[in-house]
């Protein structure tokens, strides 16, 4: 059982940072709604937890877009030398070479590479507002509703990025670099 370093980075970016962010997003939406919808004194407990949770989500979102743009994307968009027939090491060119797969790049990657950045901006803002206001956010209905809207958009943006990332990697995987042997077969 082996994995290349590029495939490992794609795994860390997509299933690690991106996947964890998506999982965390639904939790944050529910918790933010529940905590602020309730006027019960018990809802005041755990403010610190929500602050740290959102800050961790912001860190995950930034790590996801940074590794995507600056580690994996250069491998994805690498240009093959003239006359290269085997495009397996050049995912973008491989997708563009066939009318059956070109839309994964023209729509999927073109959308994903930009929309994904809305997630860290939105969640960093949400973390900052919750950090500053805490349970006081219950007294600012408009702010609370807008923060929830931004968080929904960040979930949608991360969902689009995750879906297209997975499908692009299925059709034209980022491969190469050193091979890491995980298990030795019999």
């Amino acid at each position, binding site marked *: 059982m082996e994995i290349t370093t590029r495939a490992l980075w794609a795994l860390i970016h997509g299933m690690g940072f991106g996947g964890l962010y998506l999982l965390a997003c639904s939790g944050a939406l529910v918790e933010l709604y529940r905590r602020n919808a309730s006027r019960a004194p018990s809802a005041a407990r755990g403010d610190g937890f929500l602050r740290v949770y959102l800050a961790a989500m912001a860190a995950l979102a930034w790590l996801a*877009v940074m590794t995507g*743009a*600056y580690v994996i*994307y*250069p491998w994805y*968009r690498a240009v093959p030398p003239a006359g290269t027939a085997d495009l397996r090491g050049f995912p973008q060119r491989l997708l563009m070479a066939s009318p059956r797969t070109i839309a994964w790049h*023209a*729509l999927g990657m*073109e*959308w994903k*590479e*930009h*929309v994904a*950045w*809305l997630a860290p*901006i*939105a969640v*960093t*803002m949400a973390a*900052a*507002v919750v950090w*500053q*206001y805490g349970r*006081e*956010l219950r*007294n*600012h209905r*408009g*702010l609370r*509703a*807008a*923060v929830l*809207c*931004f968080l929904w*958009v960040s979930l*949608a*943006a991360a969902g689009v990025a995750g879906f297209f990332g997975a499908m692009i990697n299925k059709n034209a995987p980022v491969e190469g670099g050193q091979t890491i042997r995980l298990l030795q077969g019999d």
Partner: protein
Amino acid sequence: MNNAAKEGIRITAADEVRLANGAGAAALLAAGIGSFVLGALAVLADKSAAVKSRMIFWKPTGPLSGVTTLAIAAWLFVWLLLHWRWRGRDVALKPVLGAALVLLALALALTFPPIADWL
């Protein structure tokens, strides 16, 4: 002015501490503006070869490096500016939040390739 007033803290009749909404409004509007700048720069880099080449801050990542770096810089600059102006104040929330949400919706639309191609 005492420290509580400086920080925008209000003590209500029910002895509840209430923070001014300015800091939150600044964060939201700046996020809307930053998102919109991202979408607008993505479209500009797609439409104009001159803009596209200027957006290449780091060659391996191409124009995406410039588009995202400038959008983040704009977002953080506007956030700092608005926070400095609005911190400790209550601002008219409705137009500010309306603008932030419209800018966010525009950013979403501009990052969608069929809409960007249509423009």
